[in-house]
C-alpha cells in the first residue's frame, strides 16, 4: 500500500498549479470580479489544451486516459485558484458533449435544487437536459457564479458520483487556500505589539482549519482511489465543511478587512456555499452514509 501521490501525480498537480498561477492569478481573479465575466473562453480553451477536461477520457477517444485520483489533484488546484465556471460539468461532459473535452464548449449541469442552473447564460449545453433551457436570472450570492431559475428540472443524476467527488476536490483546494491566507495574514498583521498569529485564540482557529482540511484531503483522495459511493459522500460532506468553515475562520482572522469586498475571503466563502449545494448536500450525504452504515451491519449480521 502506498497512499501517497506518485511522482507523476505530483508533477501533474504542480504543472496545473503553475499554469493557473500564470494564467489565473489574483489579478485575473479580481478582474473577473470587476467585470462580472465569469467564464473566460480563452482560459477555458487553454485548460482544455492542458487536458483538464479530457483528463479521464480514454486515449482512444482523444483523451489523456488518467483516472479520478489524477482528476482530484487537478481540481484541487482549480479550487485553490478559485477558477470560475462550470469546471466539473464540462469535465463530466468530455466525450458526451462535442467540444467539451477540448474546452471549446462550456457545459453546465442540473446539479442544484431549485431548479437553479449555474452559468446558464454562458453554457453551450447543460448536462441533464437536451439543449440549453430558458431561464430567469437570479441574483447570485457568488459574484462569479451567475444563476438562473428554470421552469423544469433536468436529471443529471447519472453524473452525481463523479460530480460530487470533483466538487469536493474544488472545496478541498479552497479550504487549503484559506488556511494559507489566514496564516499569512496572522503572521503579518500586528496588534498589541505582536503578530496576531502569536495569540492562541488566532493560532487555534488556524490549527482547526488545517485539521479539517487534512481530514477532508484524505477523504477526497481515498474516494478517488476507491470510487466507493459512501466514500464519495464522506468526501463531499467533509470537504464542504472544511471549505465553508475554513472560509469563515479565515474571515474572522482578517478582522474588518475580512468583511470587505476587496479581500478574497468572501469569494472563497461564497463559492464554497455554492458548491455545498451542488450534486450532494450535507443532509443527503449524511443520509446516504447512514444507510451505508446500517447496510454494513445488516450484511455482517446475515453473513454471521
Amino acid at each position, binding site marked *: *500500500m*502506498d*497512499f*501517497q*501521490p*506518485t511522482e507523476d*501525480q505530483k508533477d501533474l498537480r504542480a504543472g496545473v498549479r503553475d499554469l493557473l498561477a500564470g494564467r489565473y492569478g489574483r489579478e485575473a481573479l479580481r478582474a473577473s470580479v470587476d467585470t462580472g465575466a465569469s467564464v473566460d473562453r480563452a482560459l477555458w480553451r487553454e485548460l482544455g489544451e492542458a487536458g483538464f477536461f479530457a483528463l479521464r477520457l480514454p486515449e482512444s477517444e482523444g483523451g489523456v486516459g488518467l483516472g479520478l*485520483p489524477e482528476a482530484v489533484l487537478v481540481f484541487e488546484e482549480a479550487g485553490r485558484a478559485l477558477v470560475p465556471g462550470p469546471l466539473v460539468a464540462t469535465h463530466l461532459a468530455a466525450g458526451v458533449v462535442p467540444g467539451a473535452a477540448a474546452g471549446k464548449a462550456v457545459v453546465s449541469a442540473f446539479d442544484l435544487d431549485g431548479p437553479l442552473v449555474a452559468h446558464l447564460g454562458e453554457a453551450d449545453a447543460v448536462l441533464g437536459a437536451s439543449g440549453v433551457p430558458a431561464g430567469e436570472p437570479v441574483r447570485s450570492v457568488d459574484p462569479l457564479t451567475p444563476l438562473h431559475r428554470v421552469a423544469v428540472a433536468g436529471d443529471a443524476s447519472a453524473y452525481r458520483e463523479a460530480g460530487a467527488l470533483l466538487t469536493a476536490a474544488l472545496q478541498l483546494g479552497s479550504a487549503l487556500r484559506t*488556511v494559507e491566507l489566514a*496564516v499569512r495574514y*496572522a*503572521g503579518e498583521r500586528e496588534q498589541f505589539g*505582536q*503578530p496576531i*498569529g*502569536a*495569540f*492562541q485564540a*488566532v*493560532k*487555534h482557529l*488556524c*490549527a*482547526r482549519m*488545517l*485539521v479539517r482540511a*487534512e*481530514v*477532508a484531503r*484524505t*477523504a477526497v*483522495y*481515498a474516494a*478517488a*482511489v*476507491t470510487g466507493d459511493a*459512501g*466514500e464519495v*459522500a*464522506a*468526501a463531499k*460532506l*467533509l470537504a464542504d465543511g472544511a471549505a465553508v468553515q475554513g472560509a469563515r475562520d479565515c474571515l474572522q482572522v482578517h478582522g474588518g478587512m475580512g468583511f470587505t469586498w476587496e479581500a478574497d475571503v468572501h469569494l472563497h466563502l461564497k463559492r464554497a456555499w455554492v458548491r455545498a449545494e451542488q450534486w450532494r448536500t450535507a*443532509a443527503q*450525504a*449524511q*443520509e*446516504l*452514509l*447512514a*444507510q*451505508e*452504515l*446500517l447496510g*454494513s*451491519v*445488516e450484511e*455482517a*449480521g446475515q453473513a454471521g
Partner: protein
Amino acid sequence: MDLTYTEEEQDFRARLRAWLAKVLPELPAKPSPDDWPGRRAYDLGWQRRLYEAGYAGLHWPVDAGGRGATPTQHLIFLEETERAGAPYVGANFVGLLHAGPTIAAEGTAEQRARWLPPVLRGDEVWCQGFSEPDAGSDLASLRTRAVRDGDDYVISGSKIWTSHAEVADWCELLVRTDPGAPKHRGISWLAMPMDAPGVSVRPLRTLAGSAEFAQVFLDEVRVPVANRVGAENDGWRVTMVTLSFERGTAFVGEVVACRRTLGELARTAKANGRWDDPVLRRRLGRLYGEFGALWRLTQWNVSEAERSAGGVPGTGGSVFKLAYSHARQELYDTAAEVLGARSLSLEEEWTLDRLSSLSYTIAAGTSQIQRNIVAERILGLPKGR
C-alpha cells in the same frame, strides 16, 4: 495513490489471521477491570504468545530484537488484532511503545540487552513517570531532583497520572539533574526499578471509578547512574525521540474499534426506533464518514512514514490526534443519544467508554497543546510571549 496491499502484505495478513483464529479461543477469560494483578498477568500472557509466534516488537528494529516490519505491516497487525478481538496492548504499552523504543534508539548495548528482551517476552512491565503535580503541559518544568552520589543518583520528588504504576517493574523517569540550566537542558532519562526503597505508589481513582493511574512518591530513591539512557542533561532530546516513535500507528486499533462500535450503534438505534429520528440518523451518518476518513488518514500517515523509512516522523500525528479525540468523544455522546436514559446506567458498556473517552483530549498532550504544535510547527505561526 494506491490503497491496495502488495502480495507480501496480503500474505502477512493471511498468516496473521490464521494464527489469531487459532490462538484467540485458547485465551483465558478477561480479568475484571479492577483486578490489577489479573490484568497484568493477562496482558503479559498475551505478549508472551506474540513473542512465541514471532510477532513481538514487530515494528522494532531487528538489532533491538524486533522484526523490523514496515509501517504498513505494523498497520495490518494492529488492524487485524483489533478486528479479531485480540487483547489490547494494555500494561505493555509503555514498554513496547515508549520506553523500549527509547532504549533501542539511545541505549548502550548492555542497556538494550538488559531491558529489551523482557519487554518483548512479556516478562516485565514499564510505566511512564513524566508528568508531575506542577508539570503537565509544561513538562520541561519538572522538578523531581536527582543528585549524584557516587555511582547512584538519589532521587526525590513526585510523579502523577502514572498509568499502570501499581503493576510496573520499571519506570521511565524524567528527572532534573541540573537545576541551574535552562529548563530543557537539565533533564535526564532514567530507568527506575519500581521496587527500589523509597518508591511509594498511591492509586488515584479516575472519574470512571477505577484506579487506572497513580501518584508515585520518590523519597531518596537510589538509582544507579548506569540506568541513565543518553547523556546526563540530554533527557529532553532522548524523550522527544520516544514521543515521535510511533510513526502514525498510535490509534490504529482504536479507530477500527470505533468503526465497529458505530455499526453496533446503528443496529441498536434501528432496534429501539431511534433510527427514525433524522437528526440522530444523520449524526451517525456523519460519524461513519468521519471515522472512514480517519482510517484513511491513518493509511496516509503510514504511507508517509514508509517513504521516509527510518526517518523521524513529522508532526502529522498531532493533526490526527486532534481529529480523532474529538470524533471519539462525539461517538460516545451519540451512543448516549441512542441509548436515551439507559445511558445513565453503568451497566451499559458504552457508558464506561463514554467516561473514559473524556481523557482523550487531555492525555498525551491536551488538544490545546496539540493546536499549539500544529500552529507553530506545521503552519509556522509565531510563538506567543
